């Protein structure tokens, strides 16, 4: 277990270095931060002086070295717009995004699993065919159309749920602003998390269905039938546990897609999370904030996949890390 985590940590460092190089090298392609910072009246000489002060005229390697030295100490630069450390600005928005992602994942698990199982057990049933049709549509319709449609139907026409913002939040441990523990916060969470989950749902329904159908053909399932077990036990214990193995792996990879979709969802619903912040940072050419975002997201991705590997071990005894003391 310890060896596993150490190896993971080493891999993570390597991944983070690559991410930081990439995120840093795209910085000067985003536009001129100085132009966004100062007014039209500032002369070119003064602009150049400001560039010098910010170190923007130095070579790429010099800039990167300065950045990396800071990064090792947890300093990812200072946001041009907020005039605060970029990392702090992002971490402040982290809870909002994590809660949104968490709820979306929960919805995906709770809905995609039974749907996929149903579609696999009764592939010819009208409901299964309908599910497959809906999931095809879901795969091909862009998420922002779904989200805008939901805003139109549920907020404007039916007036069930609010369409923007986080609503009321409660503070925990002095830094975690949570919207999960009061009615207003939850109602604000409804539409964003639902539309985010719709983005991921079709893939999982189809994946679970395909894997489950495969598993149901296997000899151990036939043997389970021959033992006279109930259909429920065979489907939900014997088959589902085996079905989940590849699904978990894909789930980890989909974490990346999830991050991409949070940017979209947060923008549409004015959700004050990291993705929304990122879009603002890009339009303001707040380059330190952009790189800091990319690095934080990279870190989340690495952590998520480490967790996924641990969960995978719980499901699959053949790769269980028991021998290493888990």
């Amino acid at each position, binding site marked *: 277990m310890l060896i596993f985590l150490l190896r993971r940590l080493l891999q993570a460092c390597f991944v983070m270095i690559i991410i930081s190089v990439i995120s840093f090298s795209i910085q000067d392609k985003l536009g001129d931060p100085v132009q966004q910072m100062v007014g039209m009246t500032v002369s070119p000489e003064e602009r150049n002086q400001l560039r010098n002060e910010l170190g923007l005229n130095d070579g790429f390697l010099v800039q990167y070295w300065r950045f990396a030295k800071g990064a090792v100490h947890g300093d990812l630069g200072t946001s041009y717009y907020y005039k605060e450390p970029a990392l702090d600005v992002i971490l402040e928005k982290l809870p909002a995004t994590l809660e949104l992602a968490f709820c979306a994942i929960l919805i995906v698990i709770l809905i995609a699993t039974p749907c996929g199982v149903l579609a696999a057990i009764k592939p010819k049933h009208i409901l299964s065919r309908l599910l497959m049709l809906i999931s095809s549509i879901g795969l091909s319709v862009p998420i922002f159309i779904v989200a805008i449609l939901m805003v139109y139907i549920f907020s404007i026409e039916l007036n069930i749920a609010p369409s923007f913002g986080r609503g009321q939040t409660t503070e925990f441990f002095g830094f975690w602003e949570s919207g999960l523990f009061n009615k207003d916060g939850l109602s604000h969470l409804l539409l964003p998390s639902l539309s985010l989950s719709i983005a991921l749902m079709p893939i999982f329904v189809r994946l679970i269905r395909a894997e489950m159908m495969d598993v149901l*053909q296997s000899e151990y399932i036939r043997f389970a039938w*021959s033992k006279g077990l109930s259909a429920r036990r065979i489907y939900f214990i014997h088959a589902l546990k085996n079905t989940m193995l590849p699904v978990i792996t894909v789930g980890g990879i989909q974490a990346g897609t999830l991050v991409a979709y949070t940017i979209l969802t947060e923008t549409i619903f004015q959700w004050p999370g990291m993705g929304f912040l990122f879009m603002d940072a890009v339009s303001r050419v707040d380059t330190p904030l952009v790189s800091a975002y990319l690095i934080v997201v990279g870190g989340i991705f690495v952590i998520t996949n480490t967790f996924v590997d641990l969960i995978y071990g719980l499901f699959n005894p053949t790769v269980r890390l028991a021998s290493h003391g888990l």
Partner: protein
Amino acid sequence: MKKRELAALIDVSFTLNRGERIAIVGESGAGKSILGFSIVNLISKPGYIESGSIKLENKELTTMNLRQLQEVRGKRIAMIFQDPMMTLNPVLTIGNQLVETIRSHTNISYKDARNIAIEKLHNVQIASPEKRFDQYPHELSGGMRQRVIIASVLLLNPDIIIADEPTTALDVTIQAEILQLLLTICQDNGVALVLISHDLGVVSKVAERTLVMYAGHIVEEGPTLEIINDPQHPYTQGLLNALPQMTIPGQRLNQIQGSMPSLAERPSGCAFHPRCPYATQKCKQEQPQFIYSGVSSVACFIIEDMLNEFTDTDKEAL
């Protein structure tokens, strides 16, 4: 694509007495396995039983609903499959898979079920069953897994065990052990056995009666030892001749020319006629009926003609 239904089994009929051990032999594609699976209605889709009757004592199995079948499966009729590496669920412990069988048929506590499971593991000569109980299938060897499967089949003291090539996937030394174990267990508990095999050598050690199948039909049926000593049907003769023991060392192994026809291309008349060395015009056109040859029941015109000639000469002599 045109949908076409094919029959895997035609006119197959036999009885199994309490405690009796029978064998079903034939090449791959003869319909042995599907026969075994259809007894408890476990044929994979889209296959189905079109007509006929399968009775356990007086209860008709073909018309049972799933719930009634679940009571029969495992409890009255249990199955052992071909490949022990594929038969146990890889993500559940051995103990879990044993206990669930008991608990889905009876209302006993987990602890009692565990005790029964461990006792049965002990019966199939698994060392330290308590330890094995908590292990996963991948931690056991193939022979060990087949023992676990046999133990699992014995949990509810079934009346019939259907064993579909239980030793094919094992190596030869383990084969003999597993076969012996199966035989002892059936004898000790008075369990009837349907042994499905392509190996007459295996069959001769275990089964009292043998059914030889070819292309979905039974072609010969009789006491195992008699059939092995004096095979009647040309196909049975061919099968026996193909055993390596039947050849002098250094000589080429015997074989039956040709191969088993696919379901879609079953020949007319006696399905074996294209490969039969004695085939006549009549064999190509008509389906032979069962006759008793003095050794076994056999469906073959050659044997029928020989018997008729024999009785004719008898009559003349009289």
